[in-house]
């Protein structure tokens, strides 16, 4: 028989005014199993708590009911109080006689009766409450970072500098992401590569970062603190260990004219190549689609002949490797809306009327970055892709696909206003007699020195801004005729441009949905990953131990992406601060002997926390099949209990026995 103490709180006048606390504690004293029943003005106060502790000792109580305010207010407090006096904290119940009674009723008699009922219910429950111990989950203090853009790089370096190993997986042959391709960055106009490449090198050389480029996450198993990641290393045909990156191979390659991915087709690369000079690792990769030797299986092989270190292997195959990590940071970034074409999700095909893909001199903003970049295909000279002439009139269109639910996407891509201003500025710096024209909906320049930056583009570099949209672009005797509206002037505008730059909307990187499903992370209708709370848990996700940062969560500029990356890293570091994680023990469990193995619970569990398993004898002999809860994943909703026909599933802290006792106390 339990030895229960009931402690009824006056909460000053808050409870005592409407509830006759003396009568209550007297009545409760009569209940079997209740060894002391007291009331006190402020149970939560220091003297109140020590009163509880004294009684626990003197009456050697093994369960406590505090009748006061909401458990959401003070359950933790009183659990700690009881625990310090040697009562298992999970054998503490609270009866909410304030929010649910004294504050909402006036009639003293009925309120008092109700209070007694509520406490009786708690007493009935606490009698059955099982002593519980917090769950300890071992942590593999090692992180996986998916995506080697600026966010991924930042997260990886922070975690590695924090003293823990990082596995960084990048799909492309080199890390660097979108930022590596940018010319200069707003609002400071410092050269993108000058600030990024040193960080890339750090990653490449960091003793605690294991870098997998040209690789993808194939499979994810396990849970918080204990993930097993299968990584697919795509066949590179080059042994990155023995290769010195000397370049003999790509100089020798005869198949030179393949559109360069890094230059978005504006430049050319050989079949064996490094994406860009500062690539990390500075090791080439063979594009099996274009390499004659690999396509035909014979012939050519010049690169192999040239290679002094014999690092080229045409028989290279994809390879699967497995890595154990405790936390995952997703930093898969973004790509541009495909203008006038099907998007990944088969959705909108808007803006064909801008002739992108049809007219060579209509380019995307990322292509324009390459034209501006000193390391770009033109060495930083702004020229028309069609004829290499210097464009004297350049038209920039913002919101191509953004803020347009009729033809594109309803959301704002956030960075376009700023980089478009930057483009206009840089263009002017390079082509002094050139004129930049910008069509915009609104200028969104919220950010440190952002508004000032845009004003500079307009006032110092004389960019012409038209508040309005463009209806179509067409070629007429060598010029691109841009027809739009200037809604402020209330007049249509026609500009004969030499070059048009489209600020296409920001959309999540290809394949992010698949990755999210592997990780059990939610995503919105556009494929942006979902944070578990937009305000208070911005880098956490619905999957414990998986964090997100950068543009995979929403369109972001570099400073924001980097800040968020450090935030995600700190979340991982907080986990790694402990040998093992402790989780609330109020989780589900299966009575495996009685489980009928219908696995309805497995299908039901919102957290995939229940597995199909086998019950074995201690000597490993198969007894029967059963469902089995993974306490590392279970969040304690108890949905499995309700769907279990034999009630072999139960939920610690809210067991069938405890709840039925509570209900039956109301007879």
């Amino acid at each position, binding site marked *: 028989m339990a030895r229960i103490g009931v402690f009824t709180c006056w909460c000053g006048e808050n409870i005592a005014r409407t509830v006759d606390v003396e009568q209550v504690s007297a009545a409760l004293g009569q209940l079997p199993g209740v060894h002391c029943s007291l009331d006190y003005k402020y149970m939560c106060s220091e003297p109140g708590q020590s009163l509880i502790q004294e009684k626990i000792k003197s009456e050697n109580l093994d369960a406590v009911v505090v009748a006061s305010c909401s458990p959401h207010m003070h359950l933790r407090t009183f659990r700690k109080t009881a625990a310090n006096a040697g009562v298992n904290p999970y054998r503490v119940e609270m009866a909410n006689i304030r929010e649910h009674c004294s504050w909402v009723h006036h009639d003293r008699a009925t309120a008092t009766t109700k209070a007694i009922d509520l406490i009786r219910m708690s007493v009935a429950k606490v009698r059955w409450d099982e002593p519980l111990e917090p769950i300890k989950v071992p942590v593999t203090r090692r992180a996986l970072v998916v995506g080697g853009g600026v966010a991924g790089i930042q997260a990886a370096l922070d975690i590695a500098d924090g003293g823990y190993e990082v596995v960084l997986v990048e799909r492309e042959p080199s890390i660097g992401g979108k930022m590596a391709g940018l010319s200069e960055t707003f609002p400071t106009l410092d050269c993108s590569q000058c600030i990024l490449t040193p960080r890339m090198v750090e990653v490449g050389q960091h003793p605690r970062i294991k870098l997998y480029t040209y690789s993808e996450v194939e499979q994810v198993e396990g849970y918080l603190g204990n993930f097993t990641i299968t990584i697919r290393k795509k066949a590179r045909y080059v042994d990155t260990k023995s290769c010195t990156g000397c370049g003999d191979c790509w100089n020798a390659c005869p198949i030179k004219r393949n559109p360069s991915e890094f230059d978005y087709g504006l430049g050319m690369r050989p079949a064996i190549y490094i994406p860009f000079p500062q690539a990390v690792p500075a090791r080439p990769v063979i594009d099996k689609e274009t390499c004659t030797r690999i396509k035909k299986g014979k012939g050519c092989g010049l690169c192999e002949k040239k290679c002094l270190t014999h690092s080229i292997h045409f028989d290279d195959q994809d390879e699967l490797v497995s890595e154990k990590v405790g936390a995952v940071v997703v930093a898969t970034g973004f790509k541009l809306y495909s203008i006038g074409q099907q998007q990944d999700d088969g959705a909108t095909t808007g803006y064909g009327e801008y002739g992108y893909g049809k007219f060579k001199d209509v380019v995307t903003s990322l292509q324009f970055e390459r034209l501006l970049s000193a390391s770009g295909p033109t060495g930083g000279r702004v020229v028309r892709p069609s004829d290499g002439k210097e464009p004297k009139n350049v038209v920039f269109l913002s919101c191509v696909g953004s803020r347009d639910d009729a033809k594109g996407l309803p959301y704002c891509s956030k960075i376009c206003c700023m980089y478009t201003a930057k483009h206009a500025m840089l263009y002017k710096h390079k082509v002094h007699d050139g004129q930049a024209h910008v069509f915009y909906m609104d200028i969104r320049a919220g950010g440190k020195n952002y508004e000032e930056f845009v004003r500079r583009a307009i006032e110092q570099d004389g960019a012409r801004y038209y508040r309005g949209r463009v209806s179509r672009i067409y070629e007429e005797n060598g010029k691109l005729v841009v027809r739009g509206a200037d809604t402020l002037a209330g007049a249509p505008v026609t500009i004969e441009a030499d070059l048009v730059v489209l600020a296409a909307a920001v959309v999540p990187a290809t394949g992010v949905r698949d990755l999210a499903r592997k990780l059990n992370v939610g995503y919105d209708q556009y494929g942006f990953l979902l944070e578990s709370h937009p305000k208070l848990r911005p880098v956490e996700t619905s999957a414990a131990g998986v964090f997100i940062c950068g543009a995979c969560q929403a369109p972001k500029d570099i400073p924001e992406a980097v800040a968020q990356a450090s935030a995600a890293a700190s979340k991982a570091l907080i986990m790694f601060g402990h040998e093992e994680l402790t989780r609330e023990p109020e989780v589900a469990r299966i009575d495996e002997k009685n*489980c009928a193995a*219908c696995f309805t619970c497995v*299908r*039901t569990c919102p957290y995939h926390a229940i597995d199909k398993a086998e019950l074995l004898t201690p000597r490993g002999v198969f007894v029967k099949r059963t469902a089995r809860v993974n306490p590392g994943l279970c969040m304690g909703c108890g949905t499995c209990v309700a769907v279990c026909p034999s009630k072999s599933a139960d939920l610690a802290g809210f067991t*069938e*026995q405890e709840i039925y006792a509570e209900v039956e106390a109301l007879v």
Partner: protein
Amino acid sequence: MTERLRQTAARLLSEGKVQLVIGYGAAGRPALITKAEDAEKLEWNDRCLANLAVYLTRKEVKALGKAAIVVKGCDERALVVLEKESQIDRGALYVIGMACDGVGAPKCGRCQVHTPRFADEVIGTQAEPPAPPAGPNGLDRLMAKSSAERWAFWNAEFARCVKCYACRQVCPLCYCERCIADKNRPVVIDTSATPKGNFAWHITRAFHLAARCVGCGECTRACPAGIPLGLLNQSLAQATEAHFGYRPGMDRQAEPVFGAWSPADKEDFIG
């Protein structure tokens, strides 16, 4: 057909394809045949009412080894559900389907699956099922009554329940190792055969079969007190089809109703 059934059984046993054939013996009683020569004991006639699927989940039957089972189209639906709930390994089971034009059971009038659809082997042929008879059935008549009358009706019916649990034993889908009715911590269902306990039991039995019951009607047939238990399953089956277009055991691919959810689920009753 009986002949072909016996031949098949004998063949399967002699070839060692299976160690056991679950079929109907004399007077349609269940027969567990383990030797080829005993195949002669198998019968096929209009007394083969029982749904033999119930034996597949029995420990002692499982112990007899790889089994073949004789099913009617209606019984076969139970196999589909058992497979969905991973109670049987369909691959390890040999299903002998009997094309059946009815075994004189009341349910046969509305049967839609005269010919088994997923059997490894079908014996006999059967014309397409005739359209079910029009006009109200027992459930319609019951639902036509007022709520109070229905309450009175079930009171009268359950009053005769003696908690023998024949309905549970005979149900091919009541396979729990420890029935919730036998759980005593806490006592979820009042064990005594009082009206209170009887209601608790029959509500539970019926709802545990919700979106699962294949309407074989064995519960009603087995009830010594003659309580029309099938009505409860039937009403749930109707609701299940109405809400989710789901008919248990009809489609091997269909996702079970419980364990899934849809944002479109009706909630007109939720305030």
